[in-house]
């Protein structure tokens, strides 16, 4: 066999297999030069090509009546009526955030914002799902501090409110933190823009920041495991400039509003390469550009570097020749350059000139559409062996357990985090962070938008299929608790190395589980992101599917909040407490183990519980609603007291054969704790009965303690003030301690 032009070392550096190289040679019609190899390396990376996940992602439910745009564009689009649409997506920035937490997280925010405004939508909300290792480790504290300030710095400056999200802690994220960023934009339905070039002869314009050497091979970095040389990858992380992006948002929205461009795409992963191949590929055209015209920040950059740089805050625009002067003027108003770097061609090729010579000449479809999809070997995850309950001793002091759980950072108040985010700019935030879901008013309408991010790695570790379903169920439940009905889904699938059959099996199961759940709720997945290779030194994270679900509130004045509203209201539990504590915070924190079955997700029941709550809300009966999730019923009741402005307590009582620790701290799904005026309790029970949902009055609000009786014994009895203090100060205390130790 003839020797290849590039040896194994070069291929390994480019993360390409010998088979992939041979396929590239066939598609190009000759062996690629180094620059062309770099292009394929980036575009065929797992991050850009979804080569390991494609076969499974095809199974996701992506069709529904309200879907305007499903997966395949920069973001999904859902019709919300009145001629308006929401554009939303979630993306991971896990790898960069581990290497350089501040910039890694900041550029994650910048990237997802571009995905939204590139569609013609003004970004109106951000959320973040964050996972770190335990806070007693100073390294984890420093990562968390960096990530939170990075998000805060970028989001606050650009003026898009960070309205919600989640923060969880587990040892498995110590060497692999997860930073998943969600953005939602609002647009008029007839003003959506897509990544396309249209006709040959159209101009290709480069707008935004200059190109530097930062972030070269970011996409391939995110497609590898980390090892000892992780530190050396720091130069691969991009640096963000939120001010530049703010100008870019305004200028881009202006040219789209005036319809003086044909198509637009941001230069995210794989930079100029990605936009100059994907845009023409969608229009069945080619692009010819002159690399000397690309604005450069550094001297002596090679074609390879120019094409693969992931410098931030850059966009590529296709415009008709007659539109070019107006586009340039619009960008000049915001002190931004719009440089014509090339033309759309009819031959389907990406051709790049550099110092007068053609240095790249490859078919765009080969780069964009012909990356092989792998049906990688997978192993069915070993199911959990048995229920752990038989061997879990009952605690002697439930109050003490309750105190510990309230102080656990995963459960504790996250104000330390969200206080650093501007969550009110744009003045649409109707429900401040801290409740299960965020709610935004829609100007000029009675309706509101609700949104939430949810994932549970512990459940998914025990049983990925159940874990996938559970995340959907919990997200929809959080929406129901504020009075919203789900309308669309985006997901961020965080897993280990897909080349390991065990990981691939987890992925397959989780995707099938979440698909099934989305179908049960009648909602479509409109896009998202897969993040594989979340492994450092061979240790993978728990499989962590994170769901971003958007909902619609019909009447913004009827939004329900978690806090108890008055003394003497009846507390009603919808659903049942089961003996399920596999994967619970209780089992993990108190007994130091994570085994057994995760709580089962019965989708029919779940839907019926949500429908019951929504019906009761629409009748105006519900004064507060909150779901028991991490930490179980006891934490749920306590949070209802914490969210009550007067810190009203509650007395709850359960007669049951179920183990008391499972009643108090188990994390069974399909449960909601709500309060109503006593005279309305009967009506709510009627609504529940009609839908076959078990429900009962389990207590009364009032007093200054959270008191829970199980089978006649008061097991939990803590003053709200004390419980609130533990919950409130847990996370700030970790950071205060780290300062004094300096």
């Amino acid at each position, binding site marked *: 066999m003839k020797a290849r032009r590039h040896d194994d070392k070069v291929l390994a550096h480019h993360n390409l297999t010998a088979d992939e190289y041979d396929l590239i040679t066939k598609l190009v019609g000759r062996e690629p030069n180094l620059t062309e190899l770099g292009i394929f390396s980036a575009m065929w990376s797992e991050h850009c090509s979804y080569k390991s996940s494609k076969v499974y992602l095809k199974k996701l439910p992506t069709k529904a009546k309200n879907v305007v745009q499903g997966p395949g564009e920069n973001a999904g689009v859902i019709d919300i009526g009145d001629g308006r649409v929401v554009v939303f997506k979630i993306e991971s920035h896990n790898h960069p955030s581990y290497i350089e937490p501040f910039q890694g997280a900041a550029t994650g925010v910048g990237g997802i914002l571009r995905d939204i405004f590139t569609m013609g939508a003004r970004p109106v909300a951000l959320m973040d799902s964050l996972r770190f290792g335990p806070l007693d480790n100073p390294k984890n504290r420093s990562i968390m501090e960096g990530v939170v300030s990075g998000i805060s710095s970028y989001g606050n*400056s650009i003026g898009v409110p960070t309205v919600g999200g989640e923060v969880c802690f587990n040892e498995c994220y110590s060497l692999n933190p997860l930073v998943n960023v969600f953005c939602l934009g609002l647009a008029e339905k007839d003003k959506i823009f897509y990544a396309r070039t249209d006709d040959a002869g159209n101009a290709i314009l480069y707008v935004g920041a200059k190109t530097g050497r930062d972030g070269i091979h970011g996409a391939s970095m995110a497609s590898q495991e980390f090892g000892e040389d992780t530190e050396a990858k720091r130069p691969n992380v991009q640096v963000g400039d939120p001010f530049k992006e*703010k100008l870019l948002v305004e200028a881009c929205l202006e040219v789209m509003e005036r319809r003086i461009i044909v198509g637009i795409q941001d230069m995210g992963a794989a930079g100029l390469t990605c936009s100059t191949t994907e845009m023409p590929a969608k229009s069945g055209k080619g692009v010819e550009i002159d690399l000397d015209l690309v604005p450069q920040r550094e001297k002596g950059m090679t074609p390879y570097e120019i094409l693969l740089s992931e410098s931030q805050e850059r966009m590529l625009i296709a415009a008709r020749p007659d539109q070019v002067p107006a586009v340039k003027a619009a960008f000049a108003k915001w002190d931004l350059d719009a440089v014509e770097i090339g033309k759309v061609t009819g031959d389907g090729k990406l051709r790049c000139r550099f110092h007068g010579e053609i240095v790249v000449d490859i078919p765009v479809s080969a780069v964009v559409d012909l990356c092989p999809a792998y049906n990688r070997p997978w192993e069915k995850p070993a199911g959990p062996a048995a229920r752990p309950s038989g061997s879990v001793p009952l605690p002697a002091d439930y109050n003490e357990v309750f105190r510990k759980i309230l102080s656990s950072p995963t459960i504790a108040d996250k104000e330390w985090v969200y206080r650093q985010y*501007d969550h009110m700019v744009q003045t649409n935030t*109707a429900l401040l962070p801290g409740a299960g879901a965020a709610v935004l008013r829609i100007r000029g309408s009675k309706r509101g938008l609700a949104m939430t991010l949810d994932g549970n790695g512990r459940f998914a570790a025990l049983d990925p299929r159940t874990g996938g379903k559970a995340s959907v169920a919990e997200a929809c439940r959080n929406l129901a608790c504020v009075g919203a009905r789900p309308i669309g889904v985006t997901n961020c699938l965080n897993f280990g190395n897909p080349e390991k059959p065990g990981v691939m099996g987890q992925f397959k199961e989780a995707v099938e589980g979440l698909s099934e759940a989305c179908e049960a709720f009648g909602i479509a997945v409109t896009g998202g992101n897969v993040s594989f290779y979340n492994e450092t030194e061979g240790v993978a994270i728990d499989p962590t599917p994170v769901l971003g679900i958007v909902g619609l509130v019909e009447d913004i004045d009827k939004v329900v909040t978690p806090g108890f509203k008055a003394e003497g209201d009846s507390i009603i539990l919808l659903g049942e407490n089961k003996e399920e504590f596999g994967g619970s915070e209780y089992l993990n924190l108190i007994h130091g183990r994570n085994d057994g079955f995760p709580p089962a997700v019965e989708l029919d029941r779940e839907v019926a519980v949500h429908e019951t709550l929504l019906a009761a809300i629409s009748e105006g009966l519900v004064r507060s609603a909150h779901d028991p999730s991490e930490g179980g019923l006891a934490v749920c009741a306590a949070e209802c007291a914490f969210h009550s402005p007067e810190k009203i307590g509650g007395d709850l009582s359960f007669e049951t054969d179920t183990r008391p620790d499972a009643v108090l701290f188990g994390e069974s799904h399909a449960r909601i704790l709500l309060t109503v005026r006593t005279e309305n309790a009967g009506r709510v029970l009627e609504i529940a009965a009609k839908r076959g949902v078990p429900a009962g009055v389990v207590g009364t609000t009032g007093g200054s303690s959270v008191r829970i009786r199980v089978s006649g014994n008061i097991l939990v009895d803590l003053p709200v003030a004390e419980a609130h203090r533990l919950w409130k100060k847990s996370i700030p205390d970790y950071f205060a301690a780290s300062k004094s130790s300096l």
Partner: protein
Amino acid sequence: MKFGVVVFPGSNCDADAYHACKDVLGRPTTYLWHKDHDLRGVDCVILPGGFSYGDYLRSGAIARFSPLMQEVREFAGKGGLVLGICNGFQVLLELNLLPGAMLRNKNLKFLCQYVTIRLENERTPFTRKGKKGRILRIPIAHFDGNWYAPPETLKEVEDNGQVVFRYCDSEGALTKEANVNGSLHAIAGLVNKRGNVMGMMPHPERAVEPVLGSEDGLVVLQSLLEKTS
């Protein structure tokens, strides 16, 4: 009363101030572009919150050089009403239209939250609808809101009654905890000697509708609608 909202590159509360004046108060309102030299005949100039020019050097430090700021300086000199909110307050300090300077918040973190502030001086065009001692619940969102001035300036500001708002607890007491950013004398807002230029860190435009959780910001904006006595 015609309002003008200045737009610097990096302003991000401009649309919120515009919405509050135009849609909530129902008054004629226009944007004022930083590169222009024209105040378009407005009666009150609002410098909105945000990160003008990215605030990479020092909050408000570059915005003061904007062409439009020369007009604003002149306008203020003639007694025109100027309200600086958050970054707008920082710009007014940089312009020396108000005394003092902003340091980083005492906890060295960005702070976004509701605060309670006490109205100290109702004899300004910005507060005449309120009563001295009234407690307002209004959000803040800033990194550099820790107001500082040398002792002689501080004394002058106090002696002249230039302090308009102070951070307080929900009962109106000045406590260390309530002074979230660490400002000297818990100062949240102040006017110039003449009383026609006010800067405040809390965002009144974020508290003008029930759906947002507070309408206390209306005190400031509605005061501006009252006829000058």
